[in-house]
């Protein structure tokens, strides 16, 4: 398939791996954070890390939108779902995320009307088909997903759908990156930038990482060769003493982003003063709430939301995993008490979560280095 097979070509991958080994300084240890959970998934699924030299370490960042939702917000969603007449809709991964009092799947089993959808538009269609019910969309995601929610709200307004609201948990990617860069227990050399967030916001929001913190950023695609080429571009920058924002994913990402998406986001949302991130605590101006102009679509105004705050389980080390301080297999409960079937932490729930990705594709022991079996030749 065009634009896919060529980016999974094993021969090209081996050649890139050789180039990476040639440009990496053997006397130095490199830590490169992939911000996006989609990259984490690719790295484990295709064994990208196994192709890198031992001194080039990939660190998994906070870019899984499901993984960063705090337990209290899940409990609030369950509280909304339990209200009479409500249909709560959400993406599939959110249904299994554990809150303090169970997950949405468990709430559904106990009688709440919780339905999985593939887009906010699907939720709007459910509202149009159930005029006597209140349909709430549990919105999660970064700048990649927020335009879809915003456009759906505009569509609900245009089509005069009054029984549709959104419980917004949309977050923005730059504030947590800045928080990570300010974290004293973190040492990173560079970032693999989130390719699809950049289709919306462009490259400009990431320039501060190079300018203020002197760390290279390479915006990357999601196929295995994209990630390998991005690692090579980063190592080349470091070898040449450069700190720039480069775009590996030029076939998709325009440098300036999508102006129409900016406009719709600015119209429908406004920044929250602060928002709690799982494992990272409260981060200023890191999340989106629905603008007062569209208050009639704000579930937090229409329903009684408890505003629960719950500390993360003590045994769970999702916070350290999300900050890249520890690897998934270094967590005390990884693969024992915490598995995809019975997750304790959110990193084990979503397929984009570092723990689930490692568990599903790496299992419980580190794989020996070698050629990944899933690459096509």
């Amino acid at each position, binding site marked *: 398939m065009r634009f896919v097979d*060529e980016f999974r070509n094993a021969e090209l991958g081996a050649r890139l791996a050789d180039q990476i080994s040639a440009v990496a300084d053997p006397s130095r240890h490199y830590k490169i954070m992939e911000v996006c959970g989609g990259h984490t998934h690719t790295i484990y699924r295709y064994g990208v890390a196994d192709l890198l030299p031992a001194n080039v370490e990939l660190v998994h960042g906070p870019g899984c939108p499901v993984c960063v939702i705090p337990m209290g917000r899940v409990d609030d969603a369950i509280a909304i779902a339990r209200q009479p007449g409500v249909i709560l809709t959400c993406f*599939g*991964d959110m249904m299994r995320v554990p809150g303090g009092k169970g997950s949405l799947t468990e709430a559904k089993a106990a009688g709440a009307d919780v339905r*999985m959808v*593939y887009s906010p538009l699907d939720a709007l269609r459910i509202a149009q088909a159930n005029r006597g019910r209140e349909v709430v969309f549990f919105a999660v995601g970064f700048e990649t997903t927020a335009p*879809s929610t915003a*456009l759906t709200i505009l569509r609900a307004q245009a089509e005069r759908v009054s029984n549709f609201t959104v419980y917004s948990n949309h977050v923005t990617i730059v504030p947590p990156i800045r928080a990570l860069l300010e974290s004293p227990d973190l040492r990173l050399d560079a970032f693999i930038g989130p390719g699809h967030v950049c289709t919306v916001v462009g490259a400009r929001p990431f320039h501060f990482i190079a300018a203020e913190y002197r760390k290279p950023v390479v915006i990357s695609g999601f196929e295995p060769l994209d990630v390998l080429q991005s690692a090579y571009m980063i190592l080349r920058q470091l070898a040449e003493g450069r700190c720039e924002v480069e775009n590996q994913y030029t*076939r998709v990402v325009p440098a300036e982003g999508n102006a129409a*998406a900016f406009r719709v986001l600015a119209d429908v949302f406004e920044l929250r003063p602060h928002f709690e991130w799982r494992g990272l605590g409260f981060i200023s101006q890191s999340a989106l709430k629905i603008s007062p102009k569209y208050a009639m679509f704000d579930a937090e105004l229409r329903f009684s939301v408890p505003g629960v705050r719950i500390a993360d389980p003590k045994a769970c080390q999702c916070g350290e995993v999300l900050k890249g301080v520890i690897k998934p297999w270094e967590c005390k409960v990884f693969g024992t008490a915490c598995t995809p079937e019975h997750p304790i932490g959110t990193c084990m729930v979503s*397929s984009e979560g570092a723990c689930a990705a490692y568990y599903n594709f790496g299992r419980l022991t580190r794989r020996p280095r070698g050629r990944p079996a899933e690459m096509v030749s």
Partner: protein
Amino acid sequence: MTVRRDVDCEDLAHCITCSDEANRMRVLSVDADGAIAVCVDDEGRQSEVMLALTPEAKPGVEVLVHAGVALSLASRVEGNP
């Protein structure tokens, strides 16, 4: 119009909307006001897609879809491996 995807969000592949990742789809048809298209992915699965961010998308064009919105044309420039 009945368009439905049969993606299992709990399998090891990406759910089309759960992640921060977009899927390549081809536009099959566009509604009268150009707002919503029916798109198909490489496995033949169809879904409704909003075109507000890519008004230039027409039938036959490939778009990058995330959460029911076409974020970008899928091949803005040629690939680079």
